[in-house]
Structures are given as structure tokens and as C-alpha cells.
């Protein structure tokens, strides 16, 4: 058997074992889950070095016209993503041993983590869109189970449902996109060879597609159904539909509402699933099918706009949140917006670069936040913290590193990837660049606010006066992630991650025309200046304050989007449902059916002698009647 299958089988075996038996024995469950995560990480290392090759795929569905394989693509894109997922995943598993130590249901928790690892590696490795969709729903399921981990809490159960339904709505579009993809291409495979060929044949270096060129590309791809040419509109529709999947999973506006609520789950889950990896799956998917997206200029523009808007929209909301995890959640939305904008602006490599560095520092921030929450006995309101910096120094310093990396201060990891995205955006359109710069300013502002309020000033509650530092099983992963957040961009900028993905995107697109050499008129100094200004302004406002000097209700209430959904859309849907249900029981069943029944009952008044009221009699009479009828029909001839 090919060793690469261990990437999927190890966590699957762990989750099955935990489901069947080990959930009753938490320590064995932890052993199985952490063990399988380690196996995954080691296999991923072997895959990255090239020691383990892609296994032979097997047919999952095979009928004439539709073949779905379970196979793996191992190219720079998936290898890099695999290292991020399994590496961060392993660290979060280890952190959780400490964080969940006192929860009696922790066996179930680790079972959920293993389902997640199984599904997430499946998404990364998938060699076709249906396989990707299988695992895509799998991560959705594990996310649902883990958000609702403390299911006795009404809010947690509600958040879990919201996450699943939002993702389902998006997957409605995604599934349509996948089938349209198959309809146009005649395959669901996302083999870079095939996609790159398609892109090259469509020959659109500047996104200047014409119908004829696209049709010419199609005849080369040889659709078995013989579809020769598709309109540019259909291609755009497909791109938009596929992008819907990303809108759900990566929580883009307008379906972003589930992600902040998902913070009801345990904090390690927020770190791994709802910050570092799963929510980035949407971005990964876009990069995987990038050559197809690039066929539609309008589609790319929509993607760029959605990403750009989500970036600044979520950053604005984050400025006025008070729950430490919700601030980080809105920050995640904003950073995902950056990545999606990068894809739309034609820089999938920039998006993957930022995805990687973001995974490091956002996992770090969430785990450090978990350490703070742990230290303060489940306190999440930053205004009830204060003065923590010298009481839990390791947590403080690692959190500070994460905050600096996220803000994009040179030379931390976030600086390089964010700068790269901004350069790509500038090449695509100056407006995107400036929105990106303002978002960078806001990011620096709200992160400084968070640190200033939570860690500095006087302790505002009793719990904040006597925090306790977390055990090494929790702090060691923090330190490792902190190191990665420092060097994740610096030093590897030229020959590391950035050029790694850059080479991949050139390879896939086979187009030497793409180059993101920074245009002479912009320099990193501009966004960096904005970042420093944001940090200083925020520090000036928030160090040593007892309450928030800014009070902007529209931001604190998140632009009233949740209120709109809950009070308008959900209510409308329920009203429709009630009207239709009323019609069904009173008009269709009541008036028409029973009307017909009473009519015949009136005619059958003569037969009331037979109405004995005993049901068996009725049934037997019916059988008899049926029999007589059959007899008559058969023998009447």
C-alpha cells in the first residue's frame, strides 16, 4: 500500500476508534488522536521531501460519462498546504491536551479533531472537485460537532446550526459550480496539467477571452458529449458558482455571520479550524482551480471586490468588539478577505503565502488567547482583564509577537505576505491597494487596542489579579508558533515560501507574462507607515483607560447584519412555511380531500349499515372490494 494513504487513514482510524469505544477512555482517545496527527505530520514531511509519491487512485463512482476518483495531487501547492495543516494541526492537538485536561468529554473533543484532520487533508490532496466536496462537507461536519461541543449551552447549539446552514447555502452554489465545471470540461479532475492546458489554450494573458478562443480551447479538451463552445457568460456563471463555496467556507460577506458565532467552540478549535486551516480551505480551493477562474474577467473582478470589501468591513467591526475571541474572529475574516482579494487580483501565490503566515500567527494568537482565558478562569471580555503582561509573561510575549506579525510590522511574517498582496492589488487596481492599506491601519489599531486593554493598565477584576501561567504542554506550542511567526516571512522571502508558490503558479499557468515586481511608484514604506500610525494612535487611546474612549454603535452591533438575517430573512422564511403549511392542512387536505370524502359519504349514506366502526371490517371490505374489482376486470372480456 502506498504510504501516502496514511495521511487519510491514520486520522480516520483514530476517529472511528474514538467513536466506537475510546470516547469513554479519554487518555486513550488523546493518545489515538495525537498519535494520528503525528503520523500525518511525519507523512507530510516525507511527502514534501518527495520520498513518498502520490498513490494510484481508485474509482469511487464510475458510470459512463462520470468518473470520480479518490486520488491525490502532490504538487507544490498541496505539499505546502499539507505541511501547514498537519504542522499547525499537531501543535493544536498538543495544546489541547493541556487546555481540555479538565473536561470530562474530552474524548469526544479529540474524536472531532481527528475527523477534522481526516477531512482537511482530504481537501488538500483532492485530485477532483467531487472528492474535494466530500471532504469539504467533512470539515463542515467536524466544525459543526466542535462548535456545538458544549451542546448544553443554547448559544453553542445555535452557533453550530448557523455554521452548518450558512455553509450549506454556499455549497448550494458550489455544487452547481462543480456540475457546470463538469458540463463544460467533461471531467471533474483538477489536475494542474489539464487546467493549465485549458488556460494556455484559451490564451488570455490579460483576461481577454473571446467566445471563439474559448470554443477552440474546448474542442481540444474533448468533451465526450461533444459540447463545442460555451458562452463567456456560462464560464462566468461557473466561476461565480464555484466562488460561492469559498464564500461559505472562508466566511466572505454576506455569509460571514457564522464565523464569529463559531467562537462558542473550545478555543483550540477556534485556532485550528476557525482561523488557521479550515476557513482557509476556500482560498486553497480557489488557488487549486485558479486557471479556470482566470478565464472569466468578470468573475475575477467579483472575487477581488468581495475579498476587498470583507477585509475592510470585518476590520471596522473588530475595532469595537470586546470579546477577545470575537476580535480575533473578525480579524480572521479581514485577513481571509485579503487572501481572496489576492486571488481575484491575479496573485494566487500571494494568497497562499499569506495563508501560510496567517496560519502561524493566527493559530498563535488564538492559542495564546486560550491561555489567557484559561489563566482567568473562562473570562473573555478584555475589559475585565488588565495588567496581565508581567503575571503571565510567556503568554504575553507570544501574544505580542502574534499581534506584531498580524499587524504587519517589518520584519515579522505578516509584513512580507501582506506587502506582497498589496503589490499584487496595486497592479490590478489602485482602489484595491488603498483599501488594503487602510485595512492594514485598522488591523494595527484594533490589535494594539486588544493588547493595551487586556495586558496593560490596572487589573480590572479579581480574577485578573491572580492569573496562573499555563503548563508547558500549552506554552511549548505557543513558543514554536511564535518562532514561525517571526521567521515565517523573513529570510525565506526570496527562496522560501513566496518563490515556492510563485514558481507553482507560473508552472500551472504556463505564462511568462506574469510578474509582480513591485512597481517603482509604491514602496513598503507606505503601508508600514500606516501600520505604525495605527499602533501609536491606538496605544495613545487605550493604554491606561478604564473604558472605551470610542463608542460607535454601528460597528459594535456589526452593521446590524445578524439582526437583519434573524428578523427579516428567517422570519420571512418561517412565514412562508406557515402559509404553505396552512394551505396544505386546511385547503388541500381539509377542503379538497375531505370535501371529496364527505361528498362520497353523503352518496354512500345508504351503505351506512356496513359502517360498523370497526377498522378491521373496513379494511377487509376494501380488500374484498379490490378483489371483486380485479375479478370483474379480468373476467369481463
Amino acid at each position, binding site marked *: 500500500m502506498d504510504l501516502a494513504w496514511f495521511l487519510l487513514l491514520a486520522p480516520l482510524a483514530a476517529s472511528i476508534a474514538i467513536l466506537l469505544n475510546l470516547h469513554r477512555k479519554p487518555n486513550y482517545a488523546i493518545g489515538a488522536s495525537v498519535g494520528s496527527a503525528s503520523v500525518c505530520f511525519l507523512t507530510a514531511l516525507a511527502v514534501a521531501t518527495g520520498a513518498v509519491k502520490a498513490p494510484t487512485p481508485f474509482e469511487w463512482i464510475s458510470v459512463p460519462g462520470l468518473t470520480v476518483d479518490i486520488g491525490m495531487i502532490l504538487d507544490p501547492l498541496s505539499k505546502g498546504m499539507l505541511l501547514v495543516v498537519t504542522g499547525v494541526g499537531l501543535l493544536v492537538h498538543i495544546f489541547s491536551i493541556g487546555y481540555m485536561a479538565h473536561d470530562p468529554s474530552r474524548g469526544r473533543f479529540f474524536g472531532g479533531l481527528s475527523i477534522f484532520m481526516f477531512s482537511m487533508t482530504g481537501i488538500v490532496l483532492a485530485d477532483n472537485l467531487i472528492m474535494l466536496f466530500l471532504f469539504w*462537507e467533512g470539515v463542515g461536519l467536524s466544525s459543526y460537532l466542535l462548535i456545538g461541543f458544549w451542546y448544553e449551552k443554547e448559544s453553542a447549539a445555535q452557533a453550530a446550526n448557523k455554521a*452548518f446552514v450558512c455553509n450549506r447555502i454556499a455549497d448550494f452554489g458550489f455544487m452547481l459550480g462543480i*456540475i457546470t465545471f463538469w458540463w463544460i470540461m467533461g471531467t471533474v479532475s483538477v489536475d494542474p496539467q489539464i487546467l493549465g492546458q485549458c488556460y494556455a489554450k484559451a490564451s488570455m494573458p490579460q483576461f481577454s477571452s473571446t467566445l471563439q478562443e474559448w470554443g477552440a480551447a474546448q474542442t481540444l479538451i474533448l468533451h465526450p458529449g461533444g459540447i463545442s463552445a460555451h458562452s463567456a457568460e456560462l464560464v462566468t456563471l461557473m466561476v461565480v458558482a464555484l466562488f460561492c463555496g469559498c464564500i461559505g467556507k472562508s466566511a466572505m460577506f454576506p455569509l460571514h455571520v457564522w464565523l464569529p458565532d463559531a467562537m462558542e467552540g473550545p478555543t483550540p478549535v477556534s485556532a485550528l479550524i476557525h482561523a488557521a486551516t479550515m476557513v482557509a480551505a476556500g482560498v486553497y480551493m480557489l488557488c487549486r482551480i485558479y486557471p479556470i477562474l482566470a478565464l472569466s474577467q468578470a468573475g475575477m473582478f467579483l472575487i477581488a471586490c468581495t475579498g476587498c470589501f470583507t477585509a475592510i468591513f470585518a476590520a471596522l467591526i473588530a475595532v469595537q468588539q470586546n470579546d477577545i475571541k470575537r476580535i480575533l474572529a473578525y480579524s480572521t475574516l479581514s485577513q481571509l478577505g485579503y487572501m481572496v482579494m489576492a486571488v481575484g487580483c491575479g496573485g494566487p501565490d500571494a494568497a497562499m503565502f499569506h495563508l501560510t503566515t496567517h496560519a502561524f500567527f493566527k493559530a498563535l494568537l488564538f492559542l495564546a488567547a486560550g491561555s489567557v482565558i484559561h489563566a482567568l478562569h473562562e473570562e473573555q471580555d478584555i475589559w475585565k482583564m488588565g495588567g496581565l503582561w508581567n503575571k503571565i509573561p510567556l503568554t504575553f510575549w507570544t501574544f505580542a509577537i502574534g499581534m506584531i506579525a498580524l499587524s504587519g510590522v517589518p520584519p515579522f511574517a505578516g509584513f512580507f505576505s501582506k506587502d506582497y498582496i498589496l503589490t499584487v492589488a496595486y497592479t490590478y487596481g489602485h482602489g484595491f491597494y488603498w483599501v488594503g492599506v487602510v485595512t492594514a491601519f485598522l488591523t494595527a489599531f484594533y490589535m494594539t487596542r486588544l493588547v493595551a486593554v487586556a495586558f496593560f493598565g490596572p487589573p480590572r477584576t479579581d480574577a485578573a489579579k491572580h492569573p496562573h501561567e499555563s503548563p508547558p504542554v500549552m506554552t511549548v506550542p505557543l513558543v514554536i508558533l511564535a518562532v514561525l511567526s517571526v521567521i515565517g516571512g523573513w529570510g525565506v522571502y526570496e527562496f522560501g515560501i513566496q518563490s515556492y508558490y510563485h514558481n507553482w503558479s507560473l508552472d500551472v499557468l504556463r505564462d511568462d507574462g506574469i510578474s509582480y515586481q513591485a512597481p517603482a511608484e509604491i514602496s513598503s514604506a507606505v503601508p508600514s507607515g500606516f501600520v505604525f500610525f495605527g499602533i501609536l494612535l491606538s496605544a495613545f487611546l487605550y493604554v491606561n483607560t478604564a473604558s472605551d474612549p470610542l463608542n460607535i454603535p454601528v460597528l459594535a452591533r456589526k452593521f446590524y447584519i445578524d439582526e437583519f438575517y434573524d428578523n427579516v430573512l428567517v422570519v420571512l422564511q418561517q412565514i412562508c412555511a406557515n402559509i404553505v403549511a396552512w394551505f*396544505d392542512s386546511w385547503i388541500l387536505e381539509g377542503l379538497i*380531500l375531505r370535501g371529496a370524502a364527505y361528498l362520497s359519504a353523503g352518496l354512500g349514506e345508504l351503505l351506512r349499515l356496513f359502517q360498523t366502526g370497526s377498522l378491521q371490517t373496513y379494511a377487509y371490505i*376494501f*380488500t374484498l372490494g379490490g378483489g371483486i374489482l380485479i375479478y370483474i376486470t379480468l373476467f369481463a372480456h
Partner: protein
Amino acid sequence: MNSLSPLLLLLLAPLAAMVAIVMKAPAQRTAAIAAALNLVLSIGLLFLYHAAQGGYDFVMDCPWAILPGLPPIHFHLGVDGISLPLVFLTAIVSFAAVVVSPGNIRRAPEYFCYLLLMSLGAMGAFISLDLFFFYIFHEFALIPTFLLIGIWGGQNRQFASFQITLYLMTGSLILLAGLLALVMAMPPDARSFDITTLQTYLSTHPLSLASQSVIFPLLLIGFGILVGLFPFHSWAPPGYASAPPAAAMMHAGVLKKFAIYGLIRVAIPMLHDGFEQWKYVLLILLLGNFIYAGFVTLAQKELPTMLGFSSIMHMGYLFLGLVTWNVIGLTGVVILMVAHGLSAALLFGLSGEITHRSGENRFTELGGLAKPAPLLAVLFSFASMASMGVPGLANFAGEVMVFFGSFSAKLIPFAAVAIYGTVITAIFQLRAIKTIFYGPIPARYQPQSGAAAGEATGMTDLNTLVEYVPFVLLTVASLIIGFMPFLLLHIVEPSVSLLPFLK
């Protein structure tokens, strides 16, 4: 051709068990043994079937009766890749239905005989290759359904039973008229009740368009009533809500599939021009199943009626797959019939357990049951996920093929509505999980120790092997098909490819 077929055993086992029960054998145990035998046999047949050719296997054919003026009736049995999965479905759901039934139910011998008769009838309908037996076996199964609801049903059982009896009998009679008209419309020397003969003849000598366009709607409405095609669905929700769980499992899981099977096997291939003419009507009606029944489901306030409407809604996928009439869509239909049978049986069975153990089926009164009944919660979640089409469970494989098939047939707007159906299903099914199992637990379901005699002792979980094995069995079957759909596809696809007029 005249040798005995192993299929005969599938009919003899329940028959023998019924005889034994009448002779005072322990009712539930005897029924369970017969059902288990059938299950083992049907799994064996899945392995023994010669899948590569796709034709009928295990055939036996002997003349049965010759009636004046009518073609001869044969006792003709055989299965192919379309009916064999349904045989398996019948066997596994029958076994589960027998085992979940309470052993101390009143009038037990009668009850288990009726269950066995349902199983026998469904099995017979799926393995018969003669129209006469195809129809009669289904009637055999319907009558005990009415009796089970009327005698052992829950709330409103008299009314529900009366309504379902009237409605389904009407459907059966319309169907009978359609089937007879089909045979009688043929030239006298070609008339036959034999499904294979009819199919061969009619694919080369189709009936005149005029007769097809009259006969097809008879079959469509007849079968449509039996399966709950909108707007002929009103019998189902109250019927399933008051039926004893085992009867709802058998009817919603298995017996309803008879109508879809009949459309694949008889109506559409034999009256293809009529189908082409009427398929737009069918398309409009199936939108009713998705949108109308979907909305009605959202408004339900009780678990059993919600499940009843949702099983009506999900028939939309099957009808959509039928309309595509291409290999992808039809293979999807067969997979989905099995998958829906498993998930519907699970949901109705579990709903019975929830109602029985908590004494409540209204969403407003339920809550927090995951704490006292974790296994019930896990199984119900699995069943819900299956019903929602989450990959890894069987329904997804079937649904996704129906979606692809309908794109292929250029039914894109209908495919879009069908895919949106998965969103609606997620909304009501997740809401059901949440309101039943999550949230704070109402005080009356707290596990109590030493409760006074006669008081409610709180909610209990599935504890003994007998209590959970039937549900685990159905779940595992759904997981196996969901993870490895190719196991079933190898059997189904060659037979589907042999159907006439495929696009």
C-alpha cells in the same frame, strides 16, 4: 428456466414464519429469525449476482394460470441490478422493523404476522417479472399496513388509517386500470403479462401515441399516489405520524419504493412516448415536492409529521432522476432508493424510540436529551446527516448522481431547485437535532434514582443489544454504501444501461 430459484426462499421464509406463529411459536423471535435469514440470503445474492452482464439472474418461470381472454399468467421470478438492491433494502429494513417492535405488544402474533406479510409483499413485488404478481404482491403488503396503523397506531389512528386506506386503494385501482389498459392496448397475439416480453416487444413496436398519452398518466397518477407525488401526498404525514414505528419504517423505507421501481421497470420504458409527452407535468409536480413540501416541513411542530413531510419532499430527487432517463441519473435513482430507504427507516424508528422514551413528540417540549440518551443522539444525528446528503452516508452518492444526470439532461433549473432542497433539509433536520438533543435539559428528563413507583423515571437510552442493533445495522449499511458506493454501482450500472430509450 423451470428450476427452482433461490429467490423462492425469500418468499418462503416469511411465509413459514407466519405459519409457525399461527401454530403458537414465539412471535417476535420467529419473525426475527425469518427476517435475519432473508437478510443473509439477500446479501449472498448481492455477491452471487453476475453483475457484468446486467441481465436477470436467479430466474424461474412456470405457468400459473390461464384465464379466458387474457394472456397467460406466469409465476416468473428474477432479479437484475435494479431490483436486487431493493431486495436487500427490503430484507434489512424488515429485520430492523421486526427487532425494534416491542416484544410485549398486545396481540403480538397478529402484529408480527402483518409485519411479515408486508415484508413478503414488498419482496414479491420486487422479484416478480410478471405484471400480475408484481401488482398483487404490492397489494398484499398494503393491507397489513392499514391494519398495523389502525390497530396498533398512536394518536388519531382511526382517522389516519381510514384516510391512508382510501387514498392508497384509490391509487392502486388507478394503477390497476393503467396496467390492464397497457396490456389490452397491445395487438391480441402480442399480449402478455410478462415484463421481459412486454419490454422487448414494446421497445420495438411501441403503442400508438394516442393510447400511450392516455395510459401513461394513469400509471403516473397511480404510482404517484403510492409514492406521494405532489399534490397526492396528503395521506403520508398523518399516516406515518400515527403508524407504529415498524410500519412507518416498512412503508416509508421500502414499500413506497415500489412505485418508483414500477415507473423505472414498467411505465417509462414501456410507454416512452407517453412519458416524453407527460414529463413536463411530472417536472412541475416534482417542484411541488421540493418547494411546497419543503416549506410545509419547515413549519412542522412535531417530529413524526416533520419526518412524514420530509420523506415526501425527498421523493422529488427520485422523480427528478427518473425524468433525466440517462444512465447517470437512473443509477443515482437506484442508489438513492436504497439510501433513502435506510435513512427513512432509521429516522422513523428513532423517532418512535424518542417519542416512546420521552413521552413527547412536540419540539417545544423536547430538549437536552443528548445527556441522558447519548447513543440515541448519535444515531439520530447519523440518520439526519444521511437525510441531509452529507457525504460518507449513502444518500449523498445517489443525490449527486441525480444532480449530474439532470445537468446532462439539460434540466438545470430543476437541478438547482433539487440542490437547494439539501439546504432546506439541513435547516429542518438540524433544527430537529438541536431542539431534541441540545440545549439545557428539562427537569423531567433528569435521570432520577429511586423515583417513587409510578412516577416517570426520566429519559432512558438504548441500552440492550436488541435495542440498538437494528439501528446500528441500518447506519452501518448507509455508511458502507456512502463510503464505497462503487460496491453497489458495479451491480446497478450494467442493468440500468440495458434499459431502453436511454439518452
